[in-house]
């Protein structure tokens, strides 16, 4: 797990003698720790409070999602993907459905695509809100958490009204949607947009110019764009480092090319920039939602998809821009009803690799901030 080029493996055998004579202190953070966002275990090698290096130990939440896929039909596997990034279940579903659609060479009808975009972007806002709340909580500001959860509730209500579930929605079907948008869906979404816009200002009011917040986040966990690309880091983390890479623009899927939105980028690649990027992303998502709601076409919501799906032999890789970064599905089909192999490229897992680079030379308290800013979900890291 440790990259030998950058870090010699941690010596966990020799016990640390004292704070003083030993230059290094090895401390174990997690898997039961309030700030590791789940069951992440981080082994820190410290000099006093300075981090010399760290190693992530993962797998405490491993459920073998990819293996399960090999024993399920394409349709049956669909709900499983919701359980990976449970914070952004809709995005996961979108990625999977589109990947299978690509394999089947079908395309969802326009109306389905529009509703998909609305739900996915709503989900992106929900995910970012949850991130903001927990991240601020890690840095010690307890109030934003309650604000974001209050507003996230509105999104979850829309999900619940649409498909009956709040968290693991299973909103999409291969080839389109199972449910037609309910009566008043558009009105709800419009209401939500006008409701949440001032709320985002409210979060920013609490944090953006807060001196302590600035001191805690500026210059913390800096990572350059080059390093990001080398490590495969994607999503807001990459964009905050100044690389303008968003799959919605770079390889448009699901109708995104019809919408007018901007990709925010940062300059310094520090925690504060990542915060700003995500805040702007929320606003951009609102913009997309507004356009999508205005332009929902009438028409069918399901493409013609066979009842028993037997995709032709072959393989397909399809990636989407999930809230946390590039979420890719690589599916190998042997022509049967079940995938021969399904591999997920989860953004959290890849982004977590950057933790070591970002934390070197920082203090213990910064590790917390950096874990928060990476926005990992352990369900997705461990799968």
């Amino acid at each position, binding site marked *: 797990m440790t990259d030998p080029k950058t870090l010699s493996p941690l010596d966990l055998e020799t016990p640390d003698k004292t*704070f003083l004579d030993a230059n290094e202190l090895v*401390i174990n953070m997690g898997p039961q*720790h*309030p*700030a590791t966002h789940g069951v992440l275990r981080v082994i820190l090698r410290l000099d006093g*409070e300075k981090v010399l290096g760290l190693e992530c130990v993962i797998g405490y939440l491993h459920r073998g999602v990819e293996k399960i896929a090999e024993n399920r039909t394409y349709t049956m596997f669909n709900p499983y993907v919701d359980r990976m990034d449970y914070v952004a279940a809709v995005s996961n579903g979108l990625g999977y459905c589109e990947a299978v659609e690509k394999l089947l060479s079908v395309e969802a009808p326009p109306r389905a695509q529009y509703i998909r975009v609305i739900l996915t972007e709503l989900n992106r806002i929900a995910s970012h809100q949850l991130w903001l709340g927990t991240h*601020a*909580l*890690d*840095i*010690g*500001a*307890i*109030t934003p*958490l*309650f*604000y974001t959860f*209050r507003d996230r509730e509105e999104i979850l209500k829309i999900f619940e009204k649409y498909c009956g579930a709040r968290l693991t929605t299973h909103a999409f079907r291969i080839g389109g949607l199972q449910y037609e948008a309910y009566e008043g869906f558009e009105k709800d979404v419009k209401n939500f947009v006008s409701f949440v816009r001032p709320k985002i200002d409210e979060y920013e009011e*609490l*944090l953006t110019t*807060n001196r*302590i*917040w600035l*001191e*805690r986040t500026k210059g913390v966990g800096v990572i350059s764009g080059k390093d990001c690309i080398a490590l495969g880091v994607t999503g807001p983390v990459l964009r905050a480092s100044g690389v303008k890479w968003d799959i919605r623009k770079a390889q448009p899927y699901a109708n995104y090319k019809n919408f007018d939105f901007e990709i925010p980028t940062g300059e310094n690649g520090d925690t504060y920039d990542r915060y700003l990027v995500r805040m702007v992303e929320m606003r951009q998502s609102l913009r997309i939602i507004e356009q999508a709601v205005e332009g929902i076409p009438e028409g069918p919501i399901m493409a013609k998809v066979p009842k028993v799906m037997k995709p032709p032999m072959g393989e397909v890789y399809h990636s989407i821009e999930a809230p946390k970064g590039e979420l890719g599905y690589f599916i190998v089909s042997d022509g049967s009803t079940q995938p021969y192999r399904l591999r997920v490229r989860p953004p959290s897992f890849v982004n977590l690799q950057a933790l070591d680079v970002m934390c070197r030379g920082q*203090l*213990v*308290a*910064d590790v*917390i901030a950096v874990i928060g800013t990476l926005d990992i979900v352990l369900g997705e890291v461990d799968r």
Partner: protein
Amino acid sequence: MHDLVQYITSYLDSDQTPGAAGNIFWALVYVLLVFVGLSIAVICMNWLERKILAHMQVRLGPMRVGPHGLLQPIADALKLLLKEDIIPAGADKIVFWIAPFIVVLAAFTVFVVVPFGPTHAITDMNIGVLFMLGVSSLAVLGIVTAGWASNSHYPLMGALRSSAQMVSYEVAMGLAVVSAIMMTSLSEQGGTLSMIGIVQSQQQQGIWFLFKFFPLGIIAFGIFAIAMVAETNRAPFDLPEAESELTAGFHTEYSGFRWSLFFLAEYSAMIAVSSIAVTLWLGGWLRPFPNLLNGPTWDLAFSLIPGLTFLFLAGMCFYNTARMPKHPLFRIQTIGLAGFGLVLGLIGLILFVPAVRVRVNDIFWFSAKVAGFMYLYIWYRGTFPRYRFDQLMKVGWKVLLPVGLTLLILTAVVGMRTELWAQMQEVLHR
């Protein structure tokens, strides 16, 4: 028997505190009163903090135990007392056992010299401020030993952080205090370290030291206000118990009764440092504008405020009683809330009795000022993220210390400007 009665009643006419008057009976009564009052204040703080914080965070806070969660602190206390008291296997048992008591002792002993009024204090010490600073600095011993005795990494780190933090902020705190003490020397009876003397000196100079030598007084107060938050390990300086980093800092391994002692100590320490701030800068027990709005009419008007405050609180209770859902399930709660309002109203009415009114006025204003600080603490907690350790040290040593030193010199120069001016004239004329 008659002597005893005389001994007891002699204090009531005294213009000194029982300790200074050598009246042991009343001193003990005051010790008891302060102890009970402090415990009640901590309980109230517990409830208020949760409620205020909750309302800041768009939620309700405790609502289940009693009307509006009024009995929640009592339920919490019961839970803590009944909880198993765990001593970790590798812990140093004696030290682990003693540590919380050191902290509590330090936090409570401070109140020996807190002046709730010119005669309402356990004793008036010649070195009151010094005593307060000294004793409150003893709390760090308890914290360090607690962290060490737990024999675990996180508590030890919390303890080391905490001790470093408290020791460094004591310096800035001391400097701010000295600048206030220097201001006392401008009054007729000369400079003093006695807590009561400091308030009397403000009364005599006709100005709260907060506004003295504007803006020097306010800056000194600001330094103290920052340092006191750090000193009590509260947000945004709550690193020793930084939840997200060190789980709970030095008291990670504590549970049950011992943990509740730390809790008690934290809140009484908050009240203690707020009392120092109130005494030094906000005129202690003096009511607002004692010199501007003087005369019997104003005196009467201000002395009615305590009673009115309690009547207002009682009114709030009755209003909420009327708003309670009319459902059999809520009957007990409704009655409870009404009863609570009744008690508050009775207290309010008692406070209108002239004999009580005169005696309690001081205590009311002092408590009201301290309560303002308590609200500030909660407000900070609701608003600020947490400082990082090096930033905290930077604020302490590189900002507060130089500012405090400069302030000290400036205060001395401004305070002695007439003498300095005279000397300069002398030199020039020579």
